[in-house]
């Protein structure tokens, strides 16, 4: 449990559509790349360049299905490990979620039941994964529009026990915390008081949109002011080593994206990277 956390600062997710923008950020020392899109034999040049400048590139897996009842696929774990090696990553990240069952792909991250049985399966998969990884693993609680019935834990207790049992790090997505609380009429800050904040390896932030009376964490809109306020609230309690903007579409002009990164840095009390 005494993993030394790497200082990361403000980052932005590396995506094929914004490679030039990311490459040209003068102060950037932290990015994240979707692991399933990386060929470890030929990692993108920009990512290797960032690494050579002393930056951190974190492979972010989306299809491992750590929360699935089925054991994680060894080839997917091996791919994540190979990405970490190829990019010289300080850690890798994945989700507290499952993405397939019975051979059917869900197409996205689905929540796990907050039960002892699901915690056992998740812990076993995290152990299997960590046994093969050259670096620490951080897991991200997801945004979900619904919960499983018959929960035996609340989210804070579930995640805390997961961390205690496996030693895994957390990737806390502040926008997910916001979305979940907003859609359930709860106080997002309450979760901060229930989590081992010192185990957060880094945070995500993103924007979303309301549709059909529900807030969707789409990653295609600016980060709302409420999420920036939550970032400040979190950092007042415990500042995480890094915070990263996820943008996955409807990319705004570069100046707007830079302003957004500055707003995130300011809210977190971190140095601007623009």
């Amino acid at each position: 449990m005494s993993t030394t956390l790497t200082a990361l600062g403000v980052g932005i997710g590396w995506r094929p559509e914004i490679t030039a923008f990311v490459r040209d950020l003068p102060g950037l020392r932290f990015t994240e790349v979707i692991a399933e899109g990386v060929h470890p034999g030929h990692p993108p040049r920009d990512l290797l360049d960032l690494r050579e400048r002393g930056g951190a590139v974190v492979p972010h897996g989306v299809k491992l299905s750590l929360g699935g009842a089925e054991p994680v696929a060894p080839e997917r774990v091996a791919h994540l490990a190979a990405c970490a090696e190829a990019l010289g990553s300080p850690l890798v990240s994945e989700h507290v979620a499952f993405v397939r069952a019975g051979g059917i792909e869900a197409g996205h991250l689905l929540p796990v039941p907050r039960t002892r049985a699901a915690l056992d399966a998740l812990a076993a998969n995290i152990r299997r994964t960590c046994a093969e990884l050259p670096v620490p693993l951080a897991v991200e609680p997801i945004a979900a529009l619904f919960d499983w019935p018959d929960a035996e834990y609340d989210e804070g207790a579930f995640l805390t026990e997961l961390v205690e049992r496996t030693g895994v790090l957390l990737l806390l997505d502040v926008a997910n915390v916001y979305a979940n609380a907003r859609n359930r009429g709860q106080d997002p800050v309450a979760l901060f008081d229930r989590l081992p904040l010192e185990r957060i390896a880094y945070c995500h932030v993103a924007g979303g949109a309301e549709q059909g009376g529900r807030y969707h964490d789409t990653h295609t809109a600016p980060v709302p002011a409420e999420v920036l306020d939550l970032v400040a609230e979190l950092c007042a309690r415990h500042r995480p080593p890094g915070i990263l903007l996820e943008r996955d579409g409807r990319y705004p002009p570069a100046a707007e994206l830079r302003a957004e990164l500055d707003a995130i840095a300011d809210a977190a009390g971190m140095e601007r990277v623009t």
Partner: protein
Amino acid sequence: MTRQDAPADRPEAAAPAGDSPERAGEFDPALAAAQEALVRAMAAGAPVPDGFDEAAVRAAADAIVRKRAGEVARAWPVLAASYGTDWPRVFAAWAAGRPTRGSVRDAWDFARAHRAELPPEAAFDLALAEARWAYDGQRAPRRRRAAVRRVPGGVAVQLLGRMRVLGGRTRR
């Protein structure tokens, strides 16, 4: 609810708290079945399992189909562009109840299902893809060594990965 509130008649309740690697490594068929039922409801048109907020599960499933439409549009822009602003709706109508097999195969399966109505640009792309890859619609596509395919306005000839379109038409 916290764990202490778990019903005492659950088999897990008898297990010691904390680390139990022997049991934690075991396959749990009940959890697997519950997860499969939820995935079938969200991706394959099955009923939403008891106890869930059905409207919320459906909203999440709809959001996934919208995301898939975006991913297919990125994988095959010409295909999505053929439908203009109708793309998300047309794709969703086809994709609801069909679990994804990745955005490339989603695109390919969609294009085949709509072959008769594809505009020339998209039909051209589909023909080129089919000259390059053997795809039976079930297993992952495999590279062809050679193929000849009719394309709108000509014939595509592929040999060892090199493609030639005969008949005057060239890609923009």
